[in-house]
């Protein structure tokens, strides 16, 4: 497996450190790889540099030390808030990224239609963001990134602001889309059970300056059975990761 990893690697952080101009060191000695077909979730205490990690991966920020290799330019980025443009309808919001890439109108309308369908928002194309629930706004945001057909999908606590039921439903939707589209995911969350449920690999970060203290492979097969949440194995993994999180925090 390690022999072929060069071809399958999509994102690789080697010994990455990030110190902001004001002197805050957010990350230190971070090694992390995301392979094609993998869904990696990062959990860590608040302020440990998880968002910074994503911002470096996306190119919004550049690391002050270490190497970042990225083997694709098709990146999707889902922010914590849906970041929809309030004057645009769902359809027009979903078309935005293709529009910025100057994709012809007919083509992007088509791509948006497909993406809206994929996230289950068909029938709401003409609605404005203020007329949507929080969950629907997040679906719109997902659809918007899907139109670019990303190879690497970055998520910064996208479901953090949602209630439990909406959150679980969106996790299932995301898994379904992941299985269908086979992008690689790098997902950030505060919720250990969310991490275990949706990922193929969970990475635990320490408190600031953040570095990776432990990595857990999640053995449950994809497509994932929602019932897996109630198995003893799931509970055991969740327990181990929570424990590692507490250890790393000290």
């Amino acid at each position, binding site marked *: 497996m390690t022999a072929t990893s060069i071809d399958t690697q999509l994102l690789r952080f080697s010994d990455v450190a990030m110190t902001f101009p004001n002197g805050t060191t957010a990350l230190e000695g971070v090694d992390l790889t995301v392979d094609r077909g993998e869904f990696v979730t990062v959990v860590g205490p608040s302020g440990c540099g998880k968002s910074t990690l994503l911002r470096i991966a*996306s190119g919004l920020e550049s690391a002050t030390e270490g190497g970042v290799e990225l083997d694709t330019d098709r990146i999707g980025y889902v922010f914590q808030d849906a*970041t929809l443009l*309030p*004057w645009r309808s769902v359809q027009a919001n979903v078309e935005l990224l293709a529009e*910025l890439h100057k994709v012809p109108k007919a083509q992007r309308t088509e791509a948006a239609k497909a993406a809206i369908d994929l996230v289950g928002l068909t029938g709401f194309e003409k609605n404005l963001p*203020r007329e949507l629930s929080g969950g629907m706004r*997040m679906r719109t945001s997902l659809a918007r990134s899907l139109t670019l057909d990303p190879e690497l999908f970055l998520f910064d606590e996208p479901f953090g*602001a949602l209630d439990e039921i909406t959150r679980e439903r969106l996790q299932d939707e995301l898994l379904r889309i992941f299985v269908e589209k086979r992008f690689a995911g790098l997902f950030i969350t505060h919720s250990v059970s969310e991490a275990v449920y949706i990922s193929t690999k969970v990475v635990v970060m320490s408190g600031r300056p953040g570095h990776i203290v432990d990595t857990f492979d999640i053995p449950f097969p994809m497509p994932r059975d929602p019932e897996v949440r109630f198995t003893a194995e799931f509970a055991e993994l969740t327990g181990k990761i929570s424990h590692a999180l507490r250890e790393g925090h000290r």
Partner: protein
Amino acid sequence: MATTTPTTTVRADVSAAGTRSISTFRLGRGLKTLWPPLAVLAAIILGWYVLSLVVLAERNFLLPPPHEIFTEALFNPGTAADIFLALWRTALVAVTGLAIAIVLGIVWAVAMSQARWVERSLFPYAVILQCIPILALVPLIGFWFGFNFEARTIVCVLIALFPMVSNTLFGLQSVEKSQRELFQLQGASRWTVLTKLQLPAALPAIFAGMRISAGLAVVGAIVGDFFFRRGTPGIGSLLSDYTSRIQSAELFAAIIVACLFGVAVFVLFGWIGRRAVGRWYESNRG
């Protein structure tokens, strides 16, 4: 702004917007919002009569009773023709001045939004502009530019410009960081960010600025005219004439007409603003 609403609550009601727009246009609500100002108007008229007929009595040439404004001035064809011709000239100045202030204000604000150093260099002058004692400048502007349409328009622009600059700038800068980064991630150019993100986001603030500037443009047109009195006289010159001749009924008629014109312009721009952005923009006043 609507975009700052956190997505913590799940408001799964798509129909809410529909029901709201229906109730807004119900007649009953229109009457409900109309009667308080009408009651105030009735009180003012009553107070006016008392002041004019009881307090001032013989000296009520200082404040004629309200009905005389109609019988002596507005229903007098000669006077009414004077007033409305003057109003027309003033309106032309105000509309031209407002149009220039809008364009200039937006351009100025866009320039400042492009770089901090531009903002730092130019914003103080916007503030100074607002603090200039325009009244002292008006005669000077007359000497420099003649006492005609151009000079009147310049006074008008000077008075109406600041709200456009400051509101537009505020609107352009109200864009959230994450929205800006969304564009940045796609490698969007400055121009694209301006036209597809900043300007649309600034529209509610721009329309609010226009509403204020529109009122000020009317004031500006009248003030310029009031001092110049030459060239093509508008409402301002007329006010000045009536004052010097102590034609108080005519004076009040002209004031009221000018005032109603200002209100009409204010309401018009409020309406245009709501038509343009009301669908997506919820102001805090609901």
